[in-house]
C-alpha cells in the first residue's frame, strides 16, 4: 500500500488507502460549487474539510441529522414556520479564529449575489426562499422565509446546503489580498469574491499550497493534491468539534477502471475499495484476503421514465393499465438476486426503500404489482389487446385500448439503456425475455450514459427528437436524493428532470404538500400514489457500490447518500 504497512492483511497504521470510483478524479474542493462540479467524491472531500451548517445524511444507519458533524448547535423553527433560529457550536477555524454567525452571513452574501452560477440553485428554493438573514450575536443566525415550508424538507434539503466559510480569510479578490469582511456585503464585492474563489477552484494545479485551504472547519485539511486525482487528507490538528479524525492521513486513490481497482484490491494496495457486483458470488475470496464485503445501499430510486409524449407509444403509456401490465412483468426479486447478485434492492415506488424510513408508505412497501405475467396479459386482453401472429400484442381498434391509441398499434417498446455494465445489460436481456414471452416486443439500444441523458430532454410529440421511449440511466441508481426524498423535480408537471413529461394534478398536489408546512403525512401519501399510479416503471435500485473494507477498519457505516466520512474511520477494534 502507499503507506507501506496498512494493507488489508497488514497491521493498523497512521494511514489508509481509499479507492475512488473508476474514472472519478477529485477536481473541485471549494465548498461553493458551480454546476457540473459536485460529484459525490468531491462533496465528501469538501465535507471533510468544511463542516456544513446542518449535516443530514445516512452515516448513522438512518437518514437523519448528524449533529456531531455540523456547526449548528440547536435549530429551532418558529411556530408559524416562517423562520428558523440556529445557534452555532463554539468552534474555531483551523487558524484559531472562532466560527461565527458572520461566516454564515458571508455564505449567504456570496451565494445570493451569484445564485445563477451556484450549482445547487433552483428558482424559488435556497437562497430565494430566505427573505432575510440576521445575526443577532456571534453565535446566532435567524433566517426568515418568504413563506411557511415543510420543516423536514427545509432541514434536510435546504439548510444542509449552507456551508459556513471563513469571512475573516476568504473575503479577498486576489492572491495575497487583505481580507475585508465588509466587501461581501455589497453585491459587486460579493461577485468579485465569488469570481476569485471560482478561479482558484478551477486552478487544480494550484490547490496544493493554496492558502485558502489553510483555513478549514472540518476534521481534515488538504494534505496533498495532484491534478491527476491522487488526493491526501491530513488531520486538522486544531479541530475542536465532535467529529475528529480517526486516522491521521487518508489517501484517495484514483483508478482508470474497475478492473484496475480490483487488481489493486487483490494486491492488498487498498484498504477501503470496491468490487464489481459479479464478485459477490466470490465474496469468500475477498474475506480470505482480509476484507469485509458489504453492500453500500444508495438513498435513491431507479426507474424507467415513460415518454408520455412519444408520437406512437405516448398514448399507450398514458394508459394506467398498460403501465400496470408492464410493471407486472418486471421480476424485481429475481433480477436483484441473480442478475445483480444481491447488490440491488427491489423498489416499488418513488421513495427510496433502503434503508427503511418514515417516508415510505405501506402500499409501496408491499408492491402493488408483483411479478405476474398472467395478470399482465389479463389486463391487456381486458382492454382490447389481442395476441398477434408474431406473438406480440396488437390493438386492432385503437379506441378500445384507450384515448389516442392508433388502430393496429403493436405493443412493442424500445428501451434506451446506458452501456458499460454487464448487470444492466443482463437485466434488460432478462426483461426482454420475459416481456416477449408475455407478448410485449422489446428493442434494446445502448449508448454511453451521457449520450442517453443527452437524448432524452422532455419533448412534445411533434418534435423530431421525441423518438425515445424508455431511457435507463440507473446503473448506479437513477436518482439520488438529498436528505428529503421529495419528487417535485422528477415528476412535477414541467419539471426539468421530468423527462417523460408525466403530469398528474393529484400527484402534483401531493408533491407540493410535501414541501409546504402542515401536512406531515404528505410524503407517505406521495409514496403510495406513486407506487400505484406508476409515473415510471420501477426497477431494482442497485447499491451505490459493493465495498470491500479491511477487516481491521472501524467506523465504516456507509452513508446511503453516497458520501464517505473519512474522519469516522479508525484502525483497531
Amino acid at each position, binding site marked *: 500500500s502507499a503507506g507501506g504497512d496498512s494493507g488489508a492483511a497488514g497491521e493498523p497504521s497512521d494511514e489508509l488507502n481509499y479507492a475512488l470510483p473508476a474514472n472519478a478524479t477529485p477536481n473541485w474542493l471549494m465548498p461553493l460549487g458551480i454546476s457540473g462540479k459536485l460529484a459525490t467524491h468531491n462533496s465528501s472531500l469538501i465535507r471533510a474539510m468544511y463542516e456544513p451548517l446542518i449535516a443530514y445524511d445516512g452515516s448513522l444507519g438512518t437518514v437523519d441529522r448528524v449533529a456531531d458533524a455540523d456547526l449548528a448547535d440547536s435549530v429551532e423553527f418558529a411556530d408559524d414556520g416562517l423562520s428558523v433560529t440556529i445557534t452555532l457550536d463554539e468552534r474555531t477555524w483551523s487558524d484559531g479564529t472562532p466560527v461565527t454567525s458572520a461566516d454564515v452571513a458571508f455564505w449567504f452574501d456570496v451565494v445570493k449575489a451569484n445564485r445563477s452560477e451556484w450549482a445547487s440553485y433552483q428558482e424559488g428554493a435556497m437562497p430565494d426562499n430566505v427573505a432575510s438573514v440576521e445575526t443577532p450575536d456571534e453565535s446566532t443566525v435567524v433566517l426568515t422565509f418568504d413563506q411557511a415550508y415543510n420543516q423536514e424538507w427545509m432541514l434536510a434539503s435546504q439548510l444542509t446546503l449552507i456551508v459556513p466559510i471563513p469571512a475573516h480569510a476568504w473575503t479577498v479578490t486576489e492572491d495575497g489580498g487583505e481580507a475585508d469582511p465588509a466587501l461581501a456585503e455589497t453585491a459587486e464585492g460579493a461577485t468579485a469574491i465569488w469570481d476569485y474563489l471560482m478561479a482558484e477552484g478551477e486552478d487544480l494545479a494550484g490547490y496544493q499550497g493554496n492558502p485558502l485551504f489553510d483555513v478549514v472547519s472540518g476534521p481534515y485539511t488538504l494534505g496533498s493534491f*495532484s491534478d491527476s486525482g491522487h488526493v491526501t487528507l491530513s488531520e486538522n490538528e486544531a479541530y475542536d468539534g465532535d467529529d475528529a479524525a480517526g486516522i491521521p492521513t487518508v489517501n484517495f486513490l484514483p483508478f482508470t477502471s474497475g478492473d484496475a481497482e480490483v487488481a489493486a484490491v487483490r494486491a492488498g494496495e487498498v484498504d477501503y475499495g470496491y468490487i464489481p457486483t459479479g464478485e459477490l458470488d466470490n465474496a469468500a475470496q475477498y474475506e480470505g484476503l482480509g476484507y469485509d464485503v458489504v453492500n453500500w445501499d444508495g438513498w435513491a430510486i431507479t426507474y424507467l421514465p415513460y415518454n408520455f409524449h412519444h408520437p406512437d407509444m405516448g398514448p399507450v403509456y398514458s394508459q394506467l393499465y398498460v403501465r400496470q401490465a408492464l410493471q407486472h412483468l418486471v421480476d424485481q426479486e429475481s433480477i436483484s438476486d441473480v442478475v445483480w447478485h444481491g447488490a440491488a434492492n427491489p423498489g416499488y415506488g418513488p421513495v427510496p426503500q433502503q434503508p427503511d424510513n418514515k417516508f415510505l408508505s405501506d402500499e409501496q412497501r408491499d408492491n402493488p404489482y408483483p411479478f405476474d405475467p398472467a395478470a399482465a396479459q389479463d389486463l391487456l386482453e381486458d382492454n382490447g389487446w389481442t395476441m398477434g401472429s408474431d406473438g406480440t400484442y396488437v390493438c386492432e381498434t385503437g379506441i378500445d385500448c384507450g384515448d389516442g391509441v392508433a388502430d393496429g398499434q403493436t405493443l412493442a417498446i424500445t428501451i434506451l439503456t446506458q452501456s458499460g455494465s454487464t448487470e444492466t445489460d443482463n437485466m434488460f436481456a432478462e426483461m426482454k425475455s420475459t416481456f416477449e414471452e408475455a407478448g410485449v416486443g422489446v428493442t434494446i439500444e445502448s449508448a454511453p450514459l451521457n449520450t442517453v441523458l443527452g437524448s432524452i430532454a422532455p419533448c412534445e410529440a411533434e418534435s423530431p427528437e421525441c423518438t425515445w421511449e424508455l431511457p435507463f440511466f440507473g446503473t448506479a441508481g437513477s436518482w439520488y436524493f438529498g436528505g428529503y426524498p421529495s419528487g417535485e423535480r422528477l415528476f412535477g408537471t414541467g419539471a426539468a428532470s421530468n423527462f417523460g413529461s408525466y403530469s398528474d394534478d393529484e400527484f402534483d398536489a401531493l408533491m407540493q404538500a410535501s414541501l409546504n408546512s402542515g401536512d406531515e403525512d404528505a410524503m407517505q401519501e406521495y409514496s403510495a400514489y406513486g407506487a400505484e399510479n406508476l409515473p415510471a416503471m420501477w426497477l431494482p435500485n442497485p447499491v451505490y457500490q459493493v465495498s470491500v473494507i479491511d477487516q481491521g477498519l472501524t467506523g465504516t457505516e456507509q452513508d446511503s447518500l453516497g458520501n464517505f466520512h473519512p474522519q469516522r474511520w479508525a484502525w483497531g477494534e
Partner: protein
Amino acid sequence: MSITPEAIPATVAVQATVAGRRTRSPFLRFLLRRIGQSLIVIFVVTLIVFALLQMLPGGPARGVLGVQATAEQIAAFNQAQGFDRPVWQQYLMFLGRLVTGDLGESYLLNMSVSDAIAQRLPKTLLLTGLSLVIALAIAIPVGIFQAVRRNRGADYTLSVLAIVAYSTPTFFLGMLLIMLFSQTLGVLPANAPQGDTVSAVLLEPQRLILPVLTGAIPLVANFSRYMRSSALDGLSEDYIRTARSKGTPFRRVLSRHLLRNSLTPVVAMLGYQLPVMFGGALVIEQLFNYPGMGLLFWSAAQSSDFPVLLGCVIVISIATVVGSLLADIIQAVLDPRTRGGVA
C-alpha cells in the same frame, strides 16, 4: 581527347540537365510538399471529426450537468459553449481557436483541454514509446532471422507465434498476463506506476513490465512479419550477392547491407501505426490503471466531453501525420534514393 572515361554518357548528361532545372534541393521541395499535405490532412481531420460530433444525438449539456440539472443551467451551458449558434459558426470558432493552439476547456475535468492532454500525453508516450522500442528491438532481428531461415522449422514456429500474438485481442492478452504473472505467480504487480510525472513513473520499472509487454507483444508480431518479408526481398537483391562475392561474412552482410535496406518499408509502416497503437494504449491504460491519453479519450467519449474528445483526436491525428512525416524523413535518411516524393 584520349580514351575518355571522363566523357559523360549521354544518359547522365540528360539526367543532369533535368536535375538542374529543378529546385536546388529536391529534398527541401519534397519536405515542403509533405508538410503542405500534412496540413491539408489535419484540416480534413478537423472537418470529419467536427461533423461526426455534430451528428451525435442530443447535446452534451444534460449528460455533463447530470440528471438533476435545471433547465436554466442547461441553457446557460449551451450558450456558453456556443451550441445555440449555427454549426458552421461553431466550426469556424473552433478552427479559429485551434490555430492559436487553444483546444478549449473540458466540460468535466475542471481543466483546459491542453492541460489535460499535457498531463496525460507524456505518460502515454512513455508507455507506447517503450513498447515500440522493445518491439522493434525484438522484431527486427527476429524478422531477419526468419528470412534467413525461410521455410524452415524455426521460421514456421516464429511465424505461427507471431500470428497467434497478432490474433489475440489486446484486452484478452492483458488479462491473461495479469492472471499469470500477477495473480497466479505473483511475481509482477498488476498496476502500472502511479506517479504523476514521467520520472516518477520510471522509478517503478517493475510495474511497467506488464503494461509494456501487453503493448509490445502485438507490435512484435506485426513488425516481425513486415521485417521478415522485407528482409526476404532484400536477401534476393543483387547487392547482397555482390557483398558476398567480395568475401563479406554472412553475418556482416546482414548487419551492414541487409538491415538498413529492409528497414525502409518497416519505417514507412511505423508512421501509420500510431493510431493503432493508440487504440492499444486505451485498453492497456484501462487494464493497468495508467491514466494516459487513451483513457482521457475514452472517458471523454463516455461522458460526452466534446472539447476533450476533439482535442484528443486532433492531437493524435497530428501525431500520426507528424509520425508519417518523420517516417518519410527517416526513410530518406536511410535510403538516399527516396527523395523524389512519396504519394
